[in-house]
């Protein structure tokens, strides 16, 4: 699924940082998202307890994932939902294509689905003369402009109102340039209603799949998700295999965490619970419901105690909103379907470190993501793991799975530098010597390599002529 062109993260970062409009759009939008979340999770103790609950539920479900998936398949089948298994995105794409072909369908209406982005489904169908129409407002905007999403929850967040007005004006026939939100909404609504009428098959994602009852839970605010899952005669739901939960009781805490973290809502406008296709005597709903369960590297993550925690993610996107790096460069710079902190740990595991390992360097390990993650994924620790494995290293405690592209960054220079570093700080005489040399000659260090990077925006560090070791000795501070 990787594009042929090599991913140049540094160039993307530079480009994003130079785009002042983009930076101001993100700064404003993320500030708003943070405030909204804060209002819903106002009580720190209650929030902490809820996050612990969410974490426990996800850990329990992951610990018995194979059994839960089997149960989900059994229950769904009993309810009349057809379950398909896809190990790769190519398999998943072909499953969707086969269903479309069987119904002679050439138009798919889509609700929001990150898994469909992961599959690059739109492109796949387009190449086979099938039109995939995005109906989520944000997805609709960026599809018009031929762009990928820049955020997991709010895909067009990088666009401001005026930019949206311009896109509508340029890309939609006979549409005047208007900036008022109500008028823009009306334009979108009118266009989208027409699309729903034309859609032959509807597609959606899944937020939670309940094994106990065979229920697919889908949250949304626009009603387009409900349209996609009820208007066309056929509904296809796509999910990553980590979305299964054991029982209905598991849903309320996770739902509360998801909507609170994602959009700062107690609950979304729509919560859809789909348990079967149209039953005999019922007047509406699709006559066929399909569930496609995608692996795409997830079962490999499951096999490793540390990496498994990546699968706890409920795709709320709050780690993006709180990340000092994401808020400055936006989602496109990551060149991946999943941007931000979660993307830094998820993408290299899916695409391989050799292709996307550089994502893990874009973190100051400030812990902002970990502080807000509703299911308490230790994102910084897993970023460190990506860095370890990039160099072919692994701490003893995490040697279970080796990530694709393990060791791609391994090189003699850095290995020697860190061996030398360890020697300096392991051997007191070498430490003394180094500190003394730096105190004496540090100001004359040539501005190359790391020092060049450092001094691009800062002055050269000033090394003290006498170290704290020296001062402590002089002052008679006891050494033992």
């Amino acid at each position, binding site marked *: 699924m990787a594009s042929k062109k090599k991913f140049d993260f540094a160039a993307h970062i530079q480009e994003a*940082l130079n785009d002042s409009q983009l930076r101001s759009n993100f700064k404003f939008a993320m500030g708003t998202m943070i405030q909204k979340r804060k209002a819903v999770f106002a009580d720190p103790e209650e929030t902490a307890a809820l996050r612990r609950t969410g974490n426990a539920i996800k850990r329990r479900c992951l610990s018995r994932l194979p059994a839960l998936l089997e149960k989900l398949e059994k229950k769904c089948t009993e309810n009349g939902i057809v379950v398909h298994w896809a190990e790769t995105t190519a398999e998943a794409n072909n499953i969707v294509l086969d269903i479309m072909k069987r119904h002679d369908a050439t138009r798919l209406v889509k609700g929001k689905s990150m898994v469909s982005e992961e599959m690059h489904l739109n492109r796949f169908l387009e190449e086979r003369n099938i039109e995939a129409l995005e109906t989520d407002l944000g997805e609709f905007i960026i599809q018009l402009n031929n762009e990928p999403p820049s955020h997991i929850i709010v895909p067009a967040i990088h666009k401001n109102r005026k930019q949206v007005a311009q896109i509508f004006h340029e890309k939609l026939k006979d549409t005047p340039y208007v900036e008022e939100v109500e008028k823009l909404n009306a334009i979108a609504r009118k266009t989208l209603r027409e699309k729903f009428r034309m859609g032959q098959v509807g597609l959606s994602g899944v937020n939670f799949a309940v094994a106990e009852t065979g229920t697919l839970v889908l949250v949304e605010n626009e009603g387009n998700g409900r349209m996609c899952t009820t208007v066309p005669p056929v509904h296809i739901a796509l999910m990553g295999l980590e979305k299964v939960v054991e029982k209905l009781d598991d849903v309320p805490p996770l739902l509360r965490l998801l909507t609170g973290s994602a959009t700062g809502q107690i609950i979304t406008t729509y919560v859809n619970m789909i348990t079967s296709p149209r039953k005999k005597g019922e007047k509406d709903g699709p006559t066929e419901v399909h569930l496609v369960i995608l692996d795409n590297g997830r079962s490999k993550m499951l096999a490793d105690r540390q990496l498994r925690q990546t699968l706890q993610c409920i795709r709320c996107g709050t780690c993006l909103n709180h990340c000092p790096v994401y808020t400055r460069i936006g989602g496109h710079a990551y060149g991946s379907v999943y941007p931000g902190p979660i993307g830094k740990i998820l993408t290299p595991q899916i695409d391989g470190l050799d292709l996307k390992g550089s994502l893990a360097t874009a973190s100051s390990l400030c812990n902002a993501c970990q502080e807000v993650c509703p299911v308490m994924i230790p994102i910084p620790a897993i970023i460190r793991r990506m860095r370890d494995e990039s160099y072919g290293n692994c701490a003893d405690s995490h040697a279970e799975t080796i990530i694709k592209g393990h060791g791609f960054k391994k090189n003699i220079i850095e290995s020697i530098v860190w061996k030398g570093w360890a020697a300096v700080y392991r051997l007191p005489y070498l430490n003394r010597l180094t500190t003394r040399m730096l105190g004496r000659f540090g100001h004359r260090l040539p501005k190359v390599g790391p020092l060049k990077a450092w001094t691009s925006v800062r002055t050269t560090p000033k090394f003290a002529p006498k170290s704290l070791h020296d001062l402590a000795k002089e002052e008679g501070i006891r050494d033992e």
Partner: protein
Amino acid sequence: MSLYPDKLDTVYYFGTCLVDMAYPDAGMAGIKLLQQQGVQVIFPQEQSCCGQPAYNSGFPREAMEVALKQVQAFSARDCPVVVPSGSCAGMMKTHYPELFAGHPDYYDIKAFSDRIYELGDFLLNALGARYKDKGEPVKVTWHSSCHARTEMRVTEHAKALLRQLDNVELVELEHEHECCGFGGTFSIKQPELSGAMVQDKINDIVATGASRVITGDCGCMMNIAGAMEKQGIGVRAQHLAEFIWERIHG
């Protein structure tokens, strides 16, 4: 909360590598503040670095070698280890046990980690330090390192110490919780990103109108002060310990 040890007559001091090389006066100020509270301070000359640079850069084995050296250097006595840095303290307190999970010496490492305290927290809460300000009126702002805030959770303690000083007006940053962009090797592996982050931090600092920015972490300080100096901004950056020592001596 009885998070602090009962016996407080003697403490170890872990100065950190950055203080050792670049800010030894801040390190000495910390030692003196502890001594002033009637505590005997021991500074093992065998100490060096907490190991965080390698730990965060993909070299866990090198980090472990250096970490083990620290554990040995502070093993003679079972007394608190006080650290004038939230980030290095966080490394030793929360990350050593993660780094050594499953290691034969795990329990020794864990026992060492349990003895780690950040300086400001220790002065305020373990020793009950109360300071009388003898300095001229000054307006300052406070920068918290991310690890002081999220791992050691000592930000409020440091600010409480600053508020004890009568002539010091503390103006908080608008985005106090946001990273300054240091992140150790992050600052040299992603210089543009780091530069954008420190720029926003500087703008926030300047907007407070403070003449000094006080912090408990010399990594952040080197980043922020170095960037301000490069731009000719006249706000002085100072470590909490050095600032307090200066204020109480007029």
